[in-house]
């Protein structure tokens, strides 16, 4: 009895203790987190990557594959059968088709500067079509590997410009599986090297690979359009993922591959914009890290790389301190508000609002932005050591990648609210081209998030952006003062509209 009573008692005590421990453990358990179904890139060895041979667009454009008549898609009708004419749509209207031709003497698109003129200054005696640095973005980057440059077959494929495989990845390993999807689609993407462009963050990164730049990886050469090239005549890169994507003839139907449904979805443009900004910052930091690393051994990689900085921070005309023609203040570059802790005379790092602080916009503050540490590392220690800046870039890339994945998993409303919080309430006086145009792009995204705007509003935005592009950043505040004021007026009107 006694024994059994003791056993029961002990057992009871044990149970109570166990319960208490379990209860306590459950108290300390982390709150429920959303599992992120977004694409997680995995490390791949060069040999695997090398096996993924390119096929070329003729492999995709058969009439029964992606080469059906594109009439419907080009008119904006994107049904479930949209994929059938995706190739034809691209071939008919996508600006990426002309990418390679811009390197030749017969560009298919009008351009201010010819490639030969740029090469005469950038690398005299070299043809742009033979230069890995040029080809890296003007064709499928995988075909621009220095070893492939003399290859005649590769040349034929390169002439197709930034075609299917430039964005979707070399098709050698996935062209078969993707015609008859079996099993886990996500897994096939990962195994075969088909780029998971359904993940909007991954898609933004894919675009940023050329439109911002990227280190050499996955069998692709370094993509770095730097100040030397700009000085030789190449236009600067002024990328906004959401805006650029909207301007493309869309040859796909948006789908959410993280769910089982195969139905089309409508993307929230505010979310697309915000994730685009994060991916842009991620790509920029990754490129910075690579530039810093290369500058240590490669005498052709300069440090500091001037293209890291805001163009107009140096390329502005010098003024007399007394001048203040239109109230913006010719002296704004020296104002406390603009400098916000940056040493005077040190050029500001590039603006990637709202990941960085932007002059004239209240949010985020210079020391509170996601890139505050990166900005500080590039602007404040002088000399800014390549090693330190590179190390900071490395940790920043990891932080941004995490943020990007979290955002992809969040609901549309949630991300839209986050992005809205950055916009100024009233009419800001933005004194500078980069911050103003980035604010414009953001506003346009918000407008689209509300639903497709009417033609008038679209025109207003397009005119605004076009006007920005035609502005001479040098004398914006004097000779083109009127133009500038009209622009600010348009911005005011948009900002003051009820949201």
């Amino acid at each position, binding site marked *: 009895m006694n024994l059994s009573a003791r056993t029961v008692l002990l057992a009871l005590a044990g149970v109570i203790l166990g319960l208490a421990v379990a209860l306590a453990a459950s108290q300390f358990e982390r709150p429920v987190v959303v599992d992120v179904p977004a694409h997680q890139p995995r490390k791949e060895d060069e040999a695997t990557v090398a096996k993924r041979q390119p096929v070329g667009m003729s492999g995709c454009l058969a009439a029964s594959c992606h080469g059906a008549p594109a009439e419907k898609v080009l008119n904006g009708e994107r049904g479930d059968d949209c994929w059938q004419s995706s190739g034809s749509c691209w071939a008919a209207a996508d600006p990426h088709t002309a990418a390679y031709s811009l390197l030749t003497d017969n560009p298919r698109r009008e351009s201010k500067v010819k490639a030969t003129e740029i090469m005469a200054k950038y690398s005299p005696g070299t043809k742009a079509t033979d230069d890995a640095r040029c080809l890296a973005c003007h064709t499928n980057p995988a075909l621009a590997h220095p070893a492939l440059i003399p290859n005649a077959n590769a040349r034929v494929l390169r002439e197709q410009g930034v075609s299917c495989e430039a964005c979707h990845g070399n098709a050698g390993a996935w062209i078969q599986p993707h015609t008859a999807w079996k099993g886990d689609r996500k897994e096939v993407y990962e195994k075969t090297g088909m780029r998971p462009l359904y993940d909007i963050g991954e898609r933004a990164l894919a675009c940023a690979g050329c439109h911002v730049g990227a280190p050499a990886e996955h069998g692709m050469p370094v993509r770095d359009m730097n100040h030397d090239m*700009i000085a030789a005549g190449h236009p600067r890169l002024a990328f906004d993922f959401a805006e650029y994507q909207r301007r493309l003839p869309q040859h796909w139907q948006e789908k959410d591959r993280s769910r089982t449904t195969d139905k089309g979805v409508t993307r929230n443009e505010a979310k697309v914009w915000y994730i685009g900004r994060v991916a842009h910052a991620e790509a920029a930091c990754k490129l910075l890290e690579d530039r810093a690393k290369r500058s240590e051994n490669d005498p052709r990689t300069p440090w*500091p790389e001037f293209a890291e900085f805001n*163009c107009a921070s140096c*390329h502005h*005309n010098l003024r*007399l301190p007394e001048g203040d023609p239109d109230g913006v203040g010719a002296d704004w570059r*020296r104002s406390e508000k603009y400098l916000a802790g940056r040493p005077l005379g040190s050029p500001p790092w590039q603006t990637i609002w709202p990941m960085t602080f932007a002059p004239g916009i209240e949010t985020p503050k210079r020391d509170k932005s996601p890139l505050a540490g990166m900005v500080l590392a590039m602007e404040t*220690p002088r*000399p800014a050591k390549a090693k330190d800046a590179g190390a900071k870039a490395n940790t920043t890339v990891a932080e941004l990648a995490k943020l990007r994945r979290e955002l992809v998993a969040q609901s549309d409303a949630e991300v839209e609210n986050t992005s809205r919080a950055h916009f100024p309430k009233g009419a800001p006086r933005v004194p500078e081209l980069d911050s103003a145009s980035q604010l414009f792009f953001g506003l346009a995204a918000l407008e689209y998030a509300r639903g497709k705007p009417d033609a008038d509003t679209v025109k207003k935005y397009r005119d605004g952006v076009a006007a920005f592009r035609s502005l*001479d950043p040098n004398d914006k505040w004097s000779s083109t003062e009127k133009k500038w004021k009209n622009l600010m007026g348009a911005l005011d009107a948009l900002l003051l509209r009820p949201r």
Partner: protein
Amino acid sequence: MRAVPLIAVALAAGVVVGVLNTARSHQPPASSPDLAAAPAAVPDTPYGVGKAPFAHRASTSCSASACHGAGAVGKVGSEHSTWAREAVPAETSDPHAKAYSVLFNPVSVQMGKALGIKEPHKDARCLACHAVDSAKEPETRDQILSEGVGCGGCHGPADKWIAEHTLPSWQTRSNQSKWTEFGFVPTKNLVARTLNCATCHVGDGERDMNHDFIAAGHPRLAFESARFHFQPDYRKHWTEKGDARSFEVRLWVIGQAVTLRAAANLLHARATRAEKNDKDTPWPEFSGFSCYACHQKIGDPAIRGSACETKRPAGMPGWEVWSNTAVDIAARSCGLAFPGLSSPKLLEVEKLRTLMESKRSPAPATVAKQAKNAMAELDRWLAELQAAEDRGASSVSPDAPRVIANRLATNALSKDGKKLADHDWDALAANYLGAAAMYHADGGANAAKTWSEPLLRVRDSLRFPPVKAGVFNSPADLDQKKLNLIRDNFEFLRTRTGLPEGK
């Protein structure tokens, strides 16, 4: 009579050397032979450089009416009266007298605010050039400061020479001894004088007006010795030795050497500090590069100098374009300004240029080393020029100014003459200013009428757009059209200054 054995000895020596040479000639020489051994008397460095270890005196020590304060502006014995603006109110005076007082004006205060300098008139970085700051005793210090760049600023600390320089024995002392023993800057020697000017107007180890200051509103430094001597608002308190033509030519050649020497010295100081990771030393230091290399318009490829033969790689700002552009012409024309002197070969300077323009921000230690080598090379040249100056003001041939102007015009053009050699505003201005100095040396409007026309046109094209409220303080409108105009006029100038047909 005694010359015969000397000649015999010389001949014998020649034979011996010749034999030795033949014996050695199968082997490459271990070092390049000295072609013309420099006269032993010329040291490696010029005097008048650095800081004399003596105390400064207030200008009141000089301005007694029996000394330099007689009150008759422009006359001997009235040097201080001519210099000081208080003594004789006039439309012009010596701007150095205002150097300290400008630190109180609104622009200076604003600039200080931007730089975190509470009171510019108390800050060592400002005072380094805007006053003579050395006295320990507060009252003396205040008095000397208030004089701006007073007597001691250019003539050296007077404590040791003030008594001595009134004695007849002073005249017999060499310039070298006046400097080394007394700290007196022999300003009559144009090398000593210009080196002294450059300590502030370019900078040195203790004086550094960098890009941070310029960003805050300080005007850039663009020292050109020949031009500075003829500033319209400058009231000279002395007269120059020698004829006007020779003076201008000598001064221009010396000015080129001195300016680049000072720039290399400043670069050395900056690189040394950057090497030690000094947090207040930016690297690369932007003010060492041409302002308008960065502060230029972008967008239109035609304004990026596409039609010029600028040697720098695209995307690379030029290092000290201002002081590098014409110095090679000055070196080549050394014998014209100082008959008998040979032209120096500026090989280390060339190496420094290559280093500074081949890779952005090369390692500070490498730069410091090369800057030192370049400085030593320029110092050897300057010591030669200084010795020549001490031998007496040279007399240049009447042809010299025209020849040098011709060389400068050629220097501004590409090899085939069809393009500009460098489209940077600083390069164009340096060539123009040199040619303008030569124009004045050649008698100015009275004597050199044939080349005034192209010269004036280049000047007009280089002018900044008119300064209205808030508008530019830079060559904002220097576009391809203007560059073409400048090219045409440099060619015109080259033709006009070239040798007449048949000569």
